[in-house]
């Protein structure tokens, strides 16, 4: 909670021209997967691994998008291939983002990590529902980055962790 308020204060200081309206601002980590930009709230991002510390251990009888588990400093963390999860073909080039929600950790394989941005909560727009694909459930909103070129899908980490069941 402390960091949250700090963050809000920071952004308010950075943008003095804006009206001093209390708007919830969160930092998002943007990553690329299958040509699409996605954003996750940085409070869930524990760390990023650019290469394997150890190899991933395959587990039997699981859907193909779960690549297995890795040993992250003694902890056993499941690894999900985000491309496969979103219905794309897997690629060899990737880096791993470890997400942590209340102690539950998962790692997702993404193509590359882009940057972090501050996003005001009310600027996140709802996603038009087009299909019942389960992958779509993980996206809770859309956001156009300043400059207008990039549009990113905002991911719901709760869905990512628990919606898969």
């Amino acid at each position, binding site marked *: 909670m402390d960091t949250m308020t700090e963050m809000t204060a920071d952004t308010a200081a950075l943008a003095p021209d804006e009206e001093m309206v209390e708007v919830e601002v969160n930092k998002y980590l943007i990553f690329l997967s299958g040509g699409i930009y996605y954003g996750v709230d940085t409070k869930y991002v524990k760390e990023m691994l650019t290469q394997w*510390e*150890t*190899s991933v*251990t*395959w*587990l*039997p*009888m*699981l*859907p193909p998008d*779960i690549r297995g*588990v*890795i*040993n992250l*400093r*003694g902890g*056993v*963390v*499941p690894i999900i291939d985000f491309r496969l999860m979103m219905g794309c073909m897997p690629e060899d080039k990737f880096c791993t983002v470890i997400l942590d929600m209340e102690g*539950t*950790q*998962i790692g997702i394989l993404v193509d590359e990590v882009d940057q972090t941005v501050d996003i005001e909560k009310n600027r996140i727009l709802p996603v038009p529902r087009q299909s019942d694909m389960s992958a779509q459930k993980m996206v809770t909103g859309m956001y156009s980055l300043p400059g207008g070129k990039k549009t990113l899908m905002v991911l719901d980490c709760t869905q990512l*962790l628990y919606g*898969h*069941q």
Partner: protein
Amino acid sequence: MANDMMEAYLYEMNTLLESLDEMVLGAEDRKTFSQEDVNEIFRIMHTIKGSSAMMEFDNLMTVAHRIEDMFFIIRDKGMEAVAEELRPELFDLIFQAIDFFKAEVEKLESGASLTEDIDSILANIKSFSNKIQGKADDEEPAAEAKAEPEAPAASEAGGHTSSKFPFGIRVFFDEGAGMENLRAFMLASAVRDSVESESDFDYYPADVDTNSETSAIVVDEGFSIRFLTDELRQKALAVVKDAGSVGNYNLFEYEAPEAQETQAAPQQAEPPKAQAAAPQSTPAAPAPAAQQGGNNNANKNQKESLISVNLSKLDELNAVVGEIVITESMVTASPDLEGLKLDNFTSAARQLRSLTDQLQDVSMSLRMVSVSATFQKMRRIVRDMSKKLGKEVNLVLEGEETEIDKTIVDSISDPLMHIVRNSMDHGIEENVQDRIAAGKDPVGRIVLSARHTGSEVIIEVIDDGQGADDEAILNKAMRQGLAVPGVDYSHKDILNFLLMPGFSTNVEVTEYSGRGVGMDVVKSNVESVGGTVSISSEKGHGMTTTLKIPLTMAIMDGMEVSVGDSVFTVPINNIRSILKMTNGDVIHDSTKGETLRVMDNFYSVVRAKEFYQMEKGQDEIDDGIILWVESGDNSFCLFVDKLIGEQQVVVKPLPDYVNNYGIRNYGVTGCTILGNGDISIILDVASIYAASQAG
């Protein structure tokens, strides 16, 4: 108030109440309190009184005080003072008091305010005290005479010295310590524990526990503790030295003042008398203690050598130790060392390994507690329910000493309670005549057992009651919409209805069970720690409920084997033999199944590669290895590629994320981290067998 003080208080209360509960239950079975029991209850009440007073919980203090008084009478006059027909009342009264204390402690734990109204329980204690006192007075006038000599001693205790107890210690507490009278009282209690006999010492001022005005005396003149012999004083001195807030102390001896010589003379005649009385009471204490055997001794030792540690600290310790073990093998098996001949390094590394193994064993054992305490709680439930329901039931505990992880113990406590209640309520026959007619012992029997297998703890509740009536259950399930008419359900299916949410076979909802939230809650609780619940029952022959819980935090000896690129760990306990076979040994049956003949028996073959639908791995029996494995009554041959070697491994649970896919059913129960940092999958032989049979 300081938080750790509160924590220590609650811990102490819980421990005391638990041991009290256990003891009273045992005493009730024997229908009497031994002298040792009485002393113990007295001691416990005394401690509760003291520490509650210190925490300023007046109601707790008062109740404890009254019970202490009551037991003072019993201790004085012997258990004979309580007539046979009064004893059930006494037991009920004590249980009532225990429940009161427990409820209050729970309130303290949850931060609720304490019960103010303690009149009814006090009235009960008082009326009972009167009963035994009135009776005792008639029967034992001698008791009063015996008590008399103490009276002058008490009145004489107007100063710090006493002729009866010539050897004294005078204690001064730290300046400004506060609550000096209570500190003095706590100190006296500690001294009592160390000298183990109350009649061998006294203290001045004598009413420190109830009279706060004595605080001033303690501050000004010191607190005097006086003993019969110098030896006892030396013993107590150690306690005084260790006690908190003690600023200063000095020793003194009683000297008869010359001016009062004539008066002192008869008093001086007293010490031998008191000493004569002492041997009378002391031999009585060790005798029952010896009767109760090592159990009691163990309890006593525990009291002194237990500390309470936050679970999270233990987890942290375990995590670090686990890391050390892994790092140790990373260092000693480092590829950099390959080909080097390092004698000193190797011998040091060997020593390091044995030490880390030891460290690991110790740190793992810290989290393990015996199920005894949980089982003992069930005694109480059975006792209460058998009184209430009028069913006579004998509870048998087996494997009480089985040790399991603390978190698992906590999580099975409620489920067990539900199951035992169910057995009491629905299992054991309502009518004793029904039992006799069925050729059973009129007294019902519930067995609670715990045991370890290689990878699981198995806890069973077995009753010899009326068992499950398939027809009644099915009818009920239909009414509840759980079963569909026209479908043929097997006996097993029908029993499974019992575990479904919203199922309760009893027509009437009773106080104890049958709220319709029984067994399904048990099921979900047990599943939350990765376990399973199963029921087996036959109409008229009772019911067995089995909880199987995997040992999530444990070290075990495993055999590392490889299949393709994957490494699996098979518990050594499950391996009967490792065999090399050829294709020719395999006997095919009509359904593509394969069997092998081992030691004059045929066993089916499970190929790990096919079972787990793996891409790589050996297909030819000639090129691989057969593990002949066994779990319970099930035995089969597991075909893998290669043996890697035996290793002691730390079992780690798999993340819930993957567990939710039901891989447990395919024998993937956990994993372990190997020396090189890779993860190996631990296989559960029983589940593989079950899955291969089903598939």
